[in-house]
C-alpha cells in the first residue's frame, strides 16, 4: 500500500490523501492508473510533477511499499 497526496486543482477529482494499493512499479505507471480511475483529471495530471520525501522524482522512479507520493500541480506561488 502507498499513500497519495493530492493538492490544489487535483482535489477537485481526488480525496486529499488516499491509500492506494501498489499495482504500479513506476511513477509513469501510477499516472496511467490515476488517469483510468479519474479520466477528467487527465489534463491536470499531465501537467503535474511527482515528489517523494519532499523531493521531485521523474517518471522512471521505482515506487516502494509504504511510500507517500505527492502529486504537485504547476506552481502558482508569488
Amino acid at each position, binding site marked *: 500500500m502507498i499513500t497519495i497526496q493530492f493538492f490544489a486543482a487535483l482535489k477537485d477529482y481526488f480525496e486529499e490523501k488516499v491509500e492506494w494499493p501498489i499495482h504500479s512499479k513506476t511513477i509513469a505507471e501510477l499516472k496511467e492508473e490515476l488517469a483510468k480511475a479519474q479520466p477528467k483529471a487527465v489534463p491536470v495530471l499531465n501537467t503535474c510533477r511527482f515528489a517523494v520525501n*519532499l523531493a521531485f522524482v521523474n517518471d522512471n522512479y521505482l515506487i516502494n511499499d509504504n511510500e507517500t507520493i505527492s502529486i504537485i500541480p504547476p*506552481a502558482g*506561488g508569488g
Partner: protein
Amino acid sequence: MKPLVSFLPPEVDKLSFITDKSIRPNILLSSFHNPAAGAVVLFSGDVRNNNKDKAVAYLEYEAFTEMAEKLIADVLIEAQSKWNLISAFCQHRIGKLYPSECAVIVITVSKHRKEAYLANQFIIDTVKRDAPIWKKEFYTNGGAEWKANDLSSE
C-alpha cells in the same frame, strides 16, 4: 518545523518560510540592517486586483508546507553561497489574501548592491517556478480558477 538557516538574524530564523499570518515588509526589513552591509534589497510580491482582463476580488493560496519550507531553505542557502550574501530571507503567505496584501517577500543583504539584486531575483524566480504553492483566483463576478504561473510573461 522549518529548517534553520544560520545566516538569518535570530528573530527572523524563528519564523516559518510559509505563514498564514500577514507579512509586514516594513517590520521584517528592520531586522536586516547590518553594519557590514551596503545593500538591502526587499521584494514584496503583492496581490493584484486584476489578471489579464478579469477583476480579482481575492486569492486563496495553498502550500505543501513541508516541501515548500525545504525548497525555500535550499534556495536561500544556494543564493547565499553563490553571491556571498550576508543574509537572505523569503516568506510566502497562505490562506485568503486581498489586493495590496503581501503574498511573498524576499530580502537579500550584501556588501554591494549587485549581489543583493541578482540573488533576490534568483530566489523569487526559483520559488515561483518550483515551490509547491498554488493560488486560486476569485473574481468579482463570482467565478474562480486555479492559476499556474506563466513564467514566460513575468
